[in-house]
């Protein structure tokens, strides 16, 4: 039953003191930030806000001080990021760098890479995107065809990456590609590279509009794009191992169950402080799900802090979290009628529409529901 081990989440007074500090900061900084921006949750982009967070010491919190980080605990970081998400703060600029790229560079990177990237990430001035999926490699990541070929002084990249969120805004990409062998070799022969999105020649970033018409995704063509030897992250051939070692961080955080939180707030606003029995039951149920998911997610944070790799538990959190995020718009529309569109519900209706249209992505991004359930099944010993 080890796959279902969820130790009680650790608590600390310093983390709770920090929570008050973050709330006060957000109350001031986001005082005029409209609900119709907050609803974007962790898809909201504001580089000035990211820099302010960096100045407060709330990016790269767990990174070691010797590289410009803040040497704080995972649990303190957890408090900051859940408060940011609950407020609908525009965090996507630095999100990937803070959550994944920075930790990967610290774990696998060279001394020079750490010295270069970590202080910039911590300052909220170096944003990352993740070059993983391809036109023919979605869930089946090991089948990637983008290839790095060794040349004098570096590598030539050829191939296409797809669904790369915010590649047009990022300063760097962590590229996952093949560096030896053939796609039939699967996990072996893959590597990661730190690709400069602003200076690399032979790279073309093209927008792929989402169903809402928004530009988050990109398709990136590499044609003999040269990256120097210093761009290789970790060991050549160890890409798969490096990528999968960070999945528990990627899948267990509060962003996996708070994407629709602003809609829940707006639903409650319309329902008022004395809702009908039916509405109270529905709101209570969503609250109960949030409270239990938060405990599971914080438990995983505790396991990560203790040095574990709770990949199955993280998959469980993300699977349950996406179900909740996707239920919220359905329940909201069942509780509040949007026709006729009266002024009292105008804002609610806008948040509902936004969340409804984005909900399909919640169980696709970061590992589809089907992939997660396969991972859970493996954790149970079925694979």
């Amino acid at each position: 039953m080890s796959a279902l081990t969820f130790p009680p989440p650790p608590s600390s007074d310093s983390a709770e003191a920090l929570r008050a500090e973050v709330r006060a900061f957000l109350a001031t900084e986001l005082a005029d930030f409209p609900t119709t921006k907050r609803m974007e949750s962790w898809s909201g982009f504001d580089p000035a806000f990211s820099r302010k967070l960096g100045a407060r010491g709330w990016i790269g919190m767990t990174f070691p001080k010797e590289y410009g980080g803040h040497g704080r605990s995972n649990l303190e970081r957890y408090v900051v990021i859940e408060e940011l998400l609950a407020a609908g703060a525009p965090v996507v600029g630095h999100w990937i760098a803070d959550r994944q790229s920075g930790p990967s560079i610290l774990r696998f990177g060279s001394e020079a890479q750490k010295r270069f990237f970590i202080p910039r990430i911590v300052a909220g001035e170096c944003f990352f995107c993740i070059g993983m999926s391809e036109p023919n490699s979605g869930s089946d990541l090991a089948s990637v065809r983008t290839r790095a070929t060794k040349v004098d002084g570096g590598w030539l990249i050829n191939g296409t990456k797809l669904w790369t969120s915010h590649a047009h805004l990022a300063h760097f990409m962590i590229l996952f590609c093949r560096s030896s062998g053939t796609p039939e070799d699967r996990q072996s022969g893959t590597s990661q590279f730190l690709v400069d999105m602003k200076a690399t020649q032979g790279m073309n970033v093209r927008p792929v509009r989402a169903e809402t018409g928004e530009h988050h995704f990109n398709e990136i063509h590499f044609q003999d794009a040269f990256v120097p030897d210093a761009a290789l992250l970790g060991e050549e051939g160890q890409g798969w191992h490096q990528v999968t070692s960070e999945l528990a961080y990627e899948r267990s955080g509060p962003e996996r169950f708070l994407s629709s939180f602003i809609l829940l707030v707006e639903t409650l606003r319309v329902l008022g402080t004395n809702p009908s029995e039916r509405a109270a039951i529905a709101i209570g149920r969503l609250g109960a799900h949030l409270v239990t998911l938060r405990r599971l997610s914080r438990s995983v944070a505790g396991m990560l802090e203790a040095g574990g790799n709770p990949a199955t538990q993280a998959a469980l959190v993300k699977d349950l979290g996406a179900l909740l995020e996707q239920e919220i718009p359905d329940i909201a529309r069942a509780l509040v009628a949007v026709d006729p569109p009266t002024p009292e519900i105008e804002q609610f209706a806008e948040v509902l529409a936004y969340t409804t249209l984005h909900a399909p992505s919640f169980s696709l991004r970061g590992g589809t529901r089907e992939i997660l359930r396969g991972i859970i099944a493996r954790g149970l010993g079925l694979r």
Partner: protein
Amino acid sequence: MLIETAERLFGDTITPQVLAAAEQGDFPQAAWDALAEAGLHLGLLPEEAGGFGVAPEDALALLRVAGRHALPLPLAETMLAGWLLSSAGLAVPEGPLTVAAGLTLTRDGAKFHVAGTLRGVAWGSDAAAVAVLTEMDGNPYVALLSGGYEIEERRNIAREPRNTLVVDAVPDGVAMSPVSALALRAAGAATRTLMIAGALERITAMTTQYALDRSQFGRPIGRFQAVQHSLATLAAQTAAALAAGGIAAESVVGGVKFPAIAAAKARASEAAGIGAGLAHQIHGAIGFTYEHSLHFFTKRLHAWRDEYGGEAEWNERLGRHLAAAGADALWPTLTAI
């Protein structure tokens, strides 16, 4: 340590035969004696009342072990009765106890009297005494009854005794209660939350093993993705119930935190129904037989998800608590739970 003791003890004493006999009304006295010998029922008592100073959340965690074994004994009830009595400063009698809420207490000089009907009293037929949270002049009182009631045979759908007691009694002891009726109901709900979590853990393990053992179309059914995804869903519901159990265990002693227990019981009760259904689906016809042990757990999941309030009751209480704080306070209210 306590958990390991309970796991071993229940594993040794609670066999399918004992469970089947309990459904027919045989109180498993030997299992109770072993439990009492180990002191597992004393965990919620302060040391001066015979407890042994374990953290209340660790004592309550025993109920998760009880759920893992479908323990056919009033462990939760004896713990609740002991907590209710000792909180009111009353002595806690020996033996299996139970707890109930209702009746009216009257007083004639120094003499107290309680009368009326109590329904759904768990193990009322087997308990040595009943701790009743009653009221007089609008104040909560605890009355301890070791007799003075008629017992009507009633059982829940898991065939655990849930008796009707027709009371006309002079209590053995009476004291004002610092525990309110809502707090007792919430504490009871906390016990069922932990028991649900344990039973779900057990059926997840049983169902996983069954999927590995049972072959069809030339391979274990657990090799089929459809079955794997159902098992993953069962595991996810179990994970949610385990989180709920953890919340419940931390929310009873030292001031019952009812919003936390509301969230925990409602979530665990929802998981219980989904989990029981999935376990049966994956077990196929064999899991629907009396001979297979699955039903001892799934029947209890169905009973326990309703006892001390199901989803409707606790979700509504929590929903009103969240709504009353207002939309802009939703997040701080949730994090305070």
